[in-house]
């Protein structure tokens, strides 16, 4: 979800292009009680994730999780146009959850948001809990939940898997946007029409969700084509017999 801050008081000549890639909820949009509440929610969820991620991480998965977080950081820098003078960027919550597992994804997203807020002043420090809640919890939770539901419903094929991931990625973005509107309804500082906020946030984030789905499916498809065994969400597609053809792996040997 995503946003850089329009500064009405900005000097006429911005320092450089780099100013144009700020992307998360800034300080000031939400009041202190709401920011404290999302901070507490985020802290609680991260504590749970630290426990849950142990089940997902082993010697094979841990280095990939670090790489996935770095990849998400990098791709979040690349805003893509969505028409009408607006842009969006990958959130990556759904993609990360499919690649490395949902608990690990919560940790990866939290690290990305922390680095962005502290080093790059992208997303406010008091809004860190809000950004972790929206992009770490809501985007990961909705994206992965939809993915698992569709994996269960759709044919157990590569195409079914990509469709499930794409749908999860797509819905994760408007879901995070709606969650922001919910927080804004409770603790928004500005006295503006909630309907207007909902309409603006919802519309543009449906468009951004399409970009999210396209990027997520492209990345997942690429990883599946070279090392499907490294995709945690694709474990149900892999049988030992399929993997035995890979050199160095004995039939029946577990890959995870």
């Amino acid at each position, binding site marked *: 979800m995503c946003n850089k801050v329009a500064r009405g008081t900005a000097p006429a000549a911005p320092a450089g292009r780099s100013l144009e890639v*700020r992307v998360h909820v800034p300080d000031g949009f939400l009041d202190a009680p709401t920011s404290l509440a999302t901070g507490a929610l985020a802290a609680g969820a991260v504590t749970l994730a630290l426990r849950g991620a142990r089940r997902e991480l082993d010697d094979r998965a841990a280095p990939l*999780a670090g790489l996935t977080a*770095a*990849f998400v950081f990098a791709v979040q820098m690349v805003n893509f*146009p969505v028409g009408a003078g607006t842009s969006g960027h990958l959130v990556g919550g759904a993609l990360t959850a499919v690649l490395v597992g949902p608990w690990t994804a919560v940790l990866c997203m939290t690290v990305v948001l922390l680095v962005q807020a502290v080093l790059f002043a992208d997303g406010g420090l008091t809004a860190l809990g809000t950004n972790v809640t929206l992009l770490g919890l809501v985007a990961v939770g909705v994206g992965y939940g939809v993915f698992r539901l569709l994996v269960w419903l759709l044919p157990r094929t590569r195409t079914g898997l990509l469709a499930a991931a794409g749908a999860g990625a797509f819905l994760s973005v408007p879901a995070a946007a709606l969650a922001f509107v919910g927080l804004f309804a409770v603790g928004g500082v500005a006295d503006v029409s909630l309907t207007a906020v909902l309409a603006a946030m919802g519309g543009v984030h449906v468009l951004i969700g399409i970009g999210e789905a396209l990027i997520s499916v492209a990345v997942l498809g690429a990883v599946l084509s070279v090392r499907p065994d490294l995709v945690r969400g694709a474990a149900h597609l892999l049988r030992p017999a399929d993997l035995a053809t890979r050199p160095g792996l004995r039939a029946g040997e577990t890959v995870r």
Partner: protein
Amino acid sequence: MSRRAFWLTGLLLTLLVAGVVSYHASASPDGLEWAAGESGFADTAQDSAAAGSPLADYGVAGVDDARVSGGLAGVVGVAATLVLAGGLTLVLRRRTPPSARD
């Protein structure tokens, strides 16, 4: 492709995206900023307490060339994220006994 080759290829692509491709990102306001402007709450945004960071707004303070400044900031961000997230997941992982390693 070996796991090591996969990891190194992924890292190379990641550095390429953060260091080079990021310069060509759309400069249009993003979804939340646009929506904030549309519905009239953009002006409640405050500067982050980290606004004085030498890397604030994805540039390196003192580097004038926007391409170099943004690219360096991206590479530093990738390194920081990799060290923090990779370190955390390495600490949390279940160790596989040496006999079961591939």
